């Protein structure tokens, strides 16, 4: 994404913050909507648009789980593995999904580059445990290994979103 595009996004909200540094996180999140992850060029564009050093911008991005500095699949599937979900079968969902999609039990991106599967910490949907979130869409559940597989299959054939909010 270009610095100008990022500026166009943050300039309208600039006045809402007493210090421009607050724009770094919104700028990063917005820059990520283009490719679903942040490249060196994206980070440089955020740096140019906000006025903070590229190293600083990168260090901020690397702190947060939902900002990706490595390429991801078209869709990112987050499987909650925290306690409430674990008690209701999250580990089984996770492992069977990983096996089915051919990624290691640490997660990863499928061979066709379509889907990244990752573990997530409590998504705030423990009432629907075990739950799964696709990008930052509304979390769904309760899942079974089968319904999780179905969800990924559906994602594969669905068109990619216009903007990647994850």
């Amino acid at each position, binding site marked *: 994404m270009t610095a100008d595009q990022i500026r166009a996004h943050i300039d309208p909200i600039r006045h809402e913050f007493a*210090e421009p540094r607050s724009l770094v996180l919104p700028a990063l999140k917005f820059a990520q909507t283009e490719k679903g992850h942040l490249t060196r060029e994206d980070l440089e564009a955020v740096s140019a648009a906000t006025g903070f050093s590229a190293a600083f911008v990168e260090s901020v991005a690397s*702190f947060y789980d939902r900002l990706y500095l490595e390429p991801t699949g078209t869709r990112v599937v987050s499987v909650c593995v*925290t*306690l409430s979900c*674990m008690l209701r079968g999250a580990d089984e969902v996770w492992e069977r999904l990983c096996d089915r999609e051919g990624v290691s039990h640490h997660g990863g991106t499928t061979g066709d580059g379509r889907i990244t599967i990752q573990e997530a910490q409590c998504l705030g949907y*423990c009432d629907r*445990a075990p739950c799964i979130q696709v990008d*930052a869409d*509304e979390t769904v559940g*309760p899942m079974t290994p089968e319904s999780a597989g179905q969800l990924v299959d559906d994602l594969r054939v669905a068109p990619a979103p216009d903007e990647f909010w994850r």
Partner: protein
Amino acid sequence: MPILNSVYRHREAGHVLTDVAAYREAGGFDALHTALGDMEPDDLLYVFHRSGLRGRGGAGFPMGRKASFLPKDAKLAKYVVCNADESEPGTFKDREIIQMNPFQLIEGIVLAGYAIGAERGYIYIRGEYEFQARILQAAIAAARDAGFLGTDIARSGFTFDITLYRGAGAYICGEETGLLESLEGKRGQPRLKPPFPAVAGLYSSPTLINNVETLSALPPIVTRGADWYAALGPEKSPGSKIFSVSGHVTRPGNYEIILGQTTLRELIFEHAGGVRDGRRVKAIWVGGSSVPVLGEQHLDTPLDYESLNAVGTFLGSGGCIVMDDSGCIVRSTLRLASFYKHESCGKCTPCREGTTWMERILQRIVDGEGRMEDLQLLESIFGRISGKVLCALAEGAVAPISSAIKLFREDFVAAIEQGGALRPEPMWPEAPAEAR
């Protein structure tokens, strides 16, 4: 005593209140008119104070007292920050309020802003709640269109607006100073305290930070009166609290109860449907995952701050995770240890290294490579972390682990002696799984 239906209007009305008209219909924004029309900020502060409302984010600090810590100097910019980071494992009550009743939260924030003399509020919402963020964003716009945000709110001369700020996935940004750092566009690493946010918070300005549930309680307190609220529940723990119940219960969900008038047993069995037939409750993390775990013997504890403290745990965020006797406490404890290790910000030594070390030891025990001295080692690590850290994350990491080893020591010993902890069969959803 007045009969409480609910402190939260969507619960009282029995349906979602996501448009201004519906919210008004349910009595919404009356508090704003009352406060801005008839009350001085200090009077409003006093109402908050007298209500006895305590913070619902975890620490339970009296809201009115915290608000009164902000310096009265009118020249200083002041801010209200709403903590909607809701990342505490087992907690999903703020999500309900935001999704079903965003205007009550907005109204609460404006009331808090008026009371402390702020002109801007921020809602910091966790990045994973993008769906909820959009609902809030729309509600903020609608409230502004309806004249409840912006300049000259309800023709009172008071100007106030709200900015929604999205996090990007970090539990530590729920900790108030980590949140402020993140809101300032930085890594969400907690700050040294003092100074506390009330004195030097966002942009070093006096800042009031409260949880979604706390702020949402303000409008009914104003309309129905501080005395009404204070009379709900025990003297030191007044009001209602939403408990999120999850884990091995048949009806997971949010349940609002009046503090002190409901026991843990009632919450789990009457509200949340209890555990499966033939199963018994084994472990309960009643206030989210950062509190000491309880056992079956604690089921008759009334749910309020003092009673829970008396049995050695905390009310916390009200994220009540229940495990029945099919579950494995050693594995559950390891899972929480992994959570804290993953979420440690890395700034202070005991948390960064301690959470890593604890996880490694527990993992060994689960994998069958535990040694009996590991339990003493863990206990000594607790002492090296507790009381020595920069923020409460690591205290929250120690609490469930140390309490589990105390309460369920035999399970840990068994795991060590029997070569590990087997993975139990989980409780599968009864209904066919479908994305709801």
